[in-house]
């Protein structure tokens, strides 16, 4: 895949978040907007992922999460996440981001710690992309290096899987 300087990406994202903060003046609203933008991206990004990643079909949610963390993050953000803390049913896990290019150069404004989920775009992307492969998930930040936590942690929860019965309804 074609690549570009990561810092321009980082700074553009940062400038966008700043613009959102200025426009809405409400941190919760910014989180929502970022998630929405991410969802739109995810819905389209999955196509490119499936076309170019050359992965085999995922057998279960565990497999999907693993591929998301190892292949997906590598492909687009050139970093990887590790998948940990599975619950007993295999429907919930945590993605630990060791190195997230989006948080370089970033310092949250005062009073935004624990409120502004700076990388919420990522949650939206994951939700949108998995939605397109029939997995309804929720995705949330529970730890963030920008909140002075030691790592960034995304909690991924499988809510339901869409039916894969033929014939598919087009208007779904």
């Amino acid at each position, binding site marked *: 895949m074609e690549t*570009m300087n990561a810092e321009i990406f980082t700074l553009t994202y940062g400038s966008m978040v700043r613009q959102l903060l200025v426009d809405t003046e409400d941190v919760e609203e910014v989180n929502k907007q970022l998630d929405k933008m991410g969802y739109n991206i995810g819905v389209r990004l999955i196509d490119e992922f499936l076309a170019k990643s050359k992965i085999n079909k995922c057998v279960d949610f565990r497999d999907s999460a693993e591929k998301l963390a190892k292949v997906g993050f590598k492909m*687009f953000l050139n970093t990887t996440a590790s998948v940990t803390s599975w619950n007993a049913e295999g429907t919930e896990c945590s993605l630990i981001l060791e190195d997230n290019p989006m948080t370089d150069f970033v310092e949250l404004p005062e009073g935004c710690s624990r409120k502004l989920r700076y990388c919420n775009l990522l949650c939206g992307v994951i939700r949108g992309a998995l939605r397109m492969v029939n997995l309804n998930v929720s995705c949330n930040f529970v730890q963030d290096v920008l909140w002075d936590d030691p790592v960034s942690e995304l909690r991924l929860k499988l809510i339901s899987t869409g039916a894969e019965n033929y014939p598919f309804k087009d208007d779904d």
Partner: protein
Amino acid sequence: MSLARLNIVDRPLPKGKSEVSLSAFAFLFSELVQYCLANVKSTGELESRLESVGVGVGLRLLELLCQRERASKRDIRLLDALKFVSTTLWKYLFGHQARDLEHSTTAPDEYMINDYDLFVNKYISLPKDYASLNCAAFVAGIVRGALDGAGFPSRVTAHFVPVQGQAKPKTVILVKFDASVMKREERLPS
């Protein structure tokens, strides 16, 4: 003490060699354009919103590049500042120098940076009712931010200009310096 606890200015400057996929940027940029498109009435308004996001990037790039590549030196003369934009900054952004830097023959305070195929326009096709839009307004914002930060307030706009014998139009970044800049420049020895 862990790195995360250190204040951001006390941490070492990243080397800046890491890369992300161009698609990741294209996706982000398209969402940014979509967002800016909401609630605007004209193309000009959309461009000015894109530009204001670019300014934030330009300001930071100026600081970053001056620290990293120029050993903390910053140009104080108009031409040097422009050269910094069209060579160092351009190389950093696009991987090559700008095609050329032109001085307007009619207005002494206007300069033009010409180039083809800026990556921001790579995956953009314009609908008919937005034919005059150039998403390089974002790049114009970066240029304005970098010049502003260096003490050269200016008005920067991006335009498509058709070139004879070429299928694609070239992108012209037009820089019009503030009157105060021109006055200061006149006072300085040449």
